[in-house]
């Protein structure tokens, strides 16, 4: 049985739907408070998948995801490395992505922050459905294999955040490209990457919506795949007759990876 640990703390709020997503995909899922993991870090070993769900951990006080990121860095650095070395995969959604970035797990598991997710250019929290380009030619093979099976070249998912503007030095972005780490980019309906608002909803550099680590086994993204599990989740579900719930596919892929 594939086992998923969904790590929660004060202010996590997408934990239940994320648990549902993994369960629909066929994994056994557990919600653990960070205090429980802190007491028993070795417990991480039991799991195949570690997920950092969305929310406002610690109220996003100071900056989004920062406090939990520090806790991970201070308390669980070795355990996370061991978890990955042993073949586990990690998914960070929205606030979870912010945590992975600020803990330095993305982009290279070096536990030093190399990129950031800053306040949206609009200065506002925004809930909106966006389109994402998936260009497999430019994505790490393992990442394609774990996360992207059966997805078309353009998908749509909802975002809901105030701090999602992907930011890095130019050199860093170049490295991400070279290492094939950029997995999702904001685009228009046809999959064409457009820099203008609202296609790029937060002013992200290079329209980056999600990246993986060097191995392709850690994925962080701002959009919420757990909010597109059923066809009724899309705002035009009554019109489109044949919709694949793209979000659900991502969870199914992650779980099926361990069944291969």
């Amino acid at each position, binding site marked *: 049985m594939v086992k998923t640990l969904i790590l929660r703390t004060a202010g996590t709020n997408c934990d239940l739907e994320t648990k549902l997503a993994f369960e629909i995909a066929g994994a056994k899922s557990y919600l653990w408070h960070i205090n429980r993991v802190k007491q028993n870090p070795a417990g991480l070993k039991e799991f195949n998948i570690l997920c950092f769900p969305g929310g406002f951990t610690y109220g996003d*006080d100071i900056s989004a995801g920062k406090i939990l990121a520090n806790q991970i860095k201070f308390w669980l650095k070795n355990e996370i490395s061991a978890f990955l070395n042993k073949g586990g995969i990690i998914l960070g959604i929205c606030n979870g992505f912010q945590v992975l970035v600020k803990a330095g797990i993305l982009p290279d598991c070096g536990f030093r922050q190399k990129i950031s997710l800053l306040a949206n250019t609009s200065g506002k*929290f925004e809930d909106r459905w966006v389109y994402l380009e998936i260009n497999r030619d430019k994505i790490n093979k393992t990442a394609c294999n774990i996360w992207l099976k059966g997805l078309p070249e353009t998908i749509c998912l909802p975002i809901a955040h105030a701090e999602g503007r992907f930011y890095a030095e130019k050199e860093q972005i170049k490295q991400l490209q070279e290492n094939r780490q950029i997995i999702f980019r904001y685009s228009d309906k046809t999959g064409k990457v457009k820099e203008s608002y609202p296609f790029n909803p937060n002013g992200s550099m290079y329209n980056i919506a999600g990246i993986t680590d060097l191995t392709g086994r850690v994925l962080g993204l701002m959009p919420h795949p757990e*909010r597109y599990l059923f066809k*009724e*989740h899309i705002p035009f579900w009554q019109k489109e007759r044949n919709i694949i719930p793209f979000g659900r596919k991502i969870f199914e892929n992650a779980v099926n990876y361990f069944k291969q």
Partner: protein
Amino acid sequence: MLIRVEIFIQPGHIDPQAESIKKIFASLGYKQAGVEFRRIYFLEGSISKQEAESIAKQVLVDPFNEGFKVFYSFLGRKPGPCEIEIVYNPGVTDPVSQSVKSAAADMLGRNAVSFARTGRRIKVSGIKEKEFSDIEKFLFNPLIEHKVSYSKYSRLKTLDEFSGKNYEFKLIKVNLLDAEDADLERIGKEGLSLNLAEMKTIREYFRKLGRSPTDCELETLAQTWSEHCVHKTFRGNLHYREKDSRGNLLKEEKITNLLKNTIAKVTNELNSDYCVSVFEDNSGIIKFNSQYNVCFKVETHNHPSALEPFGGASTGIGGVIRDILGTGKGAYPIASTDIFCFAQPNTPAVEGVLAPARIIKGVVEGVKDYGNKMGIPTVNGAVLFDQRFLGNPLVFCGNIGLIPKDKCFKEISPGQVIIVAGGKTGKDGIHGATFSSAELHTKSTEVSSSAVQIGSPIEEKKLASAIIKARDKNLYSAITDCGAGGLSSAAGEISQKWGCKVDLEKVPLKYQGLSYTEIWISESQERMVIVADKKNLPALDKIFQEEEVNYAVIGEITDTKKLELFYQGENVCSLDMNFLYNGLPKIEKKAVWVKPEIIKRQIPAPSDYNLIIKKLLSSYNICSKEWIIRQYDHEVQAGTFIKPLMGENFGPADAAVIKPVFSKKELLAISCGINPFYSDCDPYFMAGLVIDEALRNITAAGGNINHTAMLDNFCLGSAEDEKVLGDLVRTAKGCYDFARAYKVPFISGKDSFYNEFKISGERIVIPATLLISALSVLPDKESCMSCVFKKEKNLLYVLGRTGEEMGGSEYLRISGNINADNRLPQVFPERARRLYEKVYSSARQKIIESCHDCSDGGLAVALAEMCLGSNLGADIFTAEIPFSGEKRDDYVLFSETPSRFVAEVSLENREKFEQEFAGFDYGIIGCVSEKPGLRIYGLNSKIIADLSGEELDFYWRKTFSNW
């Protein structure tokens, strides 16, 4: 050591904070002003300089766009000209403080930071010093913050300044026994908001006891007997008269307990089998599915929002969420609603009142902050504008909860312990309950500063997680929220039947310096009172620890039928529960309603229909509220199936539909109806019209009128004004008659009085406002409909007959004819009810592709809105619209006759649809076109309106597009 960390955005990066401050300056006419913004953290504790540097670097800044500087004094450097530093007032909750302390502890591995506060420094350039000092007040709210004075703060050695002084116990007694009536009246008025009759009753009670009351006893009575807590006007004796405009008496009536004889009566008479708990608990409960029931509550937070919009709105939403958590043995919050009434943003500011734009932005920010951080989707709402809301906006916050069937009722018995859990108690919100029962005046900002607070959503989120966990393990048997009146209301009410004993010094405090009375009546946020068996304390402790929730056992349930309070062993309050809850003398008041004379003047027919439709779409009341909707997370919990914005182009929806339990099929539809403009013509029909609006919204989304419940929220002016009370009576009577005819019960409600304001001596009273919120259970998603056009060539039907009844309409308002006609639309509830049942059964058979209700702006706006969400358009023929009265294109298109829908039907289903609706008024008014936009052919068959898809989109979205 005192440490100051200043954090700034590095050059070359966008600073959203500075940008939003620039917008404020630009709105005041200083478009060239440049702004530098710094966030500041003040820390105190046993930390070395090196540790302070690394806290700043690793915890407080984002290395990618921020820089920092550490100082070892409070102020660092002296603020220059056009520079201001702002900090919270002593005693005001700083929500970030706890996070900073724990984050520093995480890093250092010890609790080294004993104290943390935040502040901000703003430096403005391109503006004269004199000009700056005139407008610096727009940068902060003196109720919760103040400008740092350099001379005072530069010498500060410790942050104790912010933590209050020590309190030394001294029992205060108020000599009422020999007080003259004049003194009684004065004591009652000053701070207690009690009238002479009530004060006399209290004097009598204590004379019998042969002792004077303590301050704590008086405050407890004042809180418990406040309008806010006990609804004494609504339940009082009213002498009601109706007059015509010449002063002739039309009708006279003695009413005892209006609430019982209208709102509660209809629910009793209908006796609907799906009602579980009505008007008893913190919210009303109805049946949902085999496992769960659902509960719903809507509260107002008007006065606090007028004074401190962000804090007022956020504590409003926080409070109503606690009502849900405190229903039965605890419900889980699944959705929020928000409805606002403001003055138009372009209304000129007046002295003593915050500018409308500031109130609007602050309120939206507050709901956003609290709702999003709690992880509760805000799914339905409305915003209305009228100048009379200038000094007294209305902020309604609603919340819906899911509750297991066996957890709907509280159980309490003597010997159980009373626990307070969640936030600590401070001086915040003292006198909130009595404050909301008095009218606002220009000096309100001075007297009520302690009644305004800041919420901490994370505190409440932790509390909610702990409560639900404990509930599911059956660790407690009753729970209620600390709302208005604080512990006094919560602990008092919950133990009302038995009696209780509370040791006030056991209540966890934010800081020292609170007197026993302050502890008892403080309205500090994020607290719940729980009653549990002693044996469950260890298990409860484990859960509270794991979820990092503060709590304390503060007393126990007794069987003395007395409320007994102690402070360090001294008895400070001893009141009979019976007197406290049943001793309030019945209020006697007069109420009068003057029936306005019918006005019907000729309205000139418009020459340019395109222009009228554009004006309607961009009017404040009708235009897109996308600016607000998108700031709310309306999709968290992943159950929102009909969202506030639907279709590929995101057009407006009628009601929200959510699926709260993943594994089950049932859904909930949520809607509202509100229209204060109608009450200027007649509050009775206003009530009928807004009930119809709420129910037809439910129907348009696929809801079932036969499994629907309503909530009533009244907002009115002073309860001392007989005309205001006349409106109250008339509205309540409307509620009774129409709810009875629609056969839809009320399950919970609230009334808010004293919604008025004085500007230079002139009273400005809000129009009588009734918000109806409706909640409907759908067996599955089959009947779900959105109002977005689905396919070209589909037929468009209008259901219901349109009438020449233009009173109160948006059309009259935007064309400057609002006083030309006051004949309100008629409601025919029996007929409407049959129509709603039919729409529901047709929706289940899937013969309607899309459905939209007609309300503000009439058919023309309804059709435009259906175009908005899709990439399709419509061709419409007004001659085909069933109509009564003088048939004119403008009347046909813009009349707001209730109980009407536009339905989109495919050609295959045409026959079936017409069979279903045989016997109802309907017309085929046109069809969906692949060409986007709206084209309307008038009665003379010539085209009278032709708007492209882009035009509709532009005019609907433009009003708030730059917000």
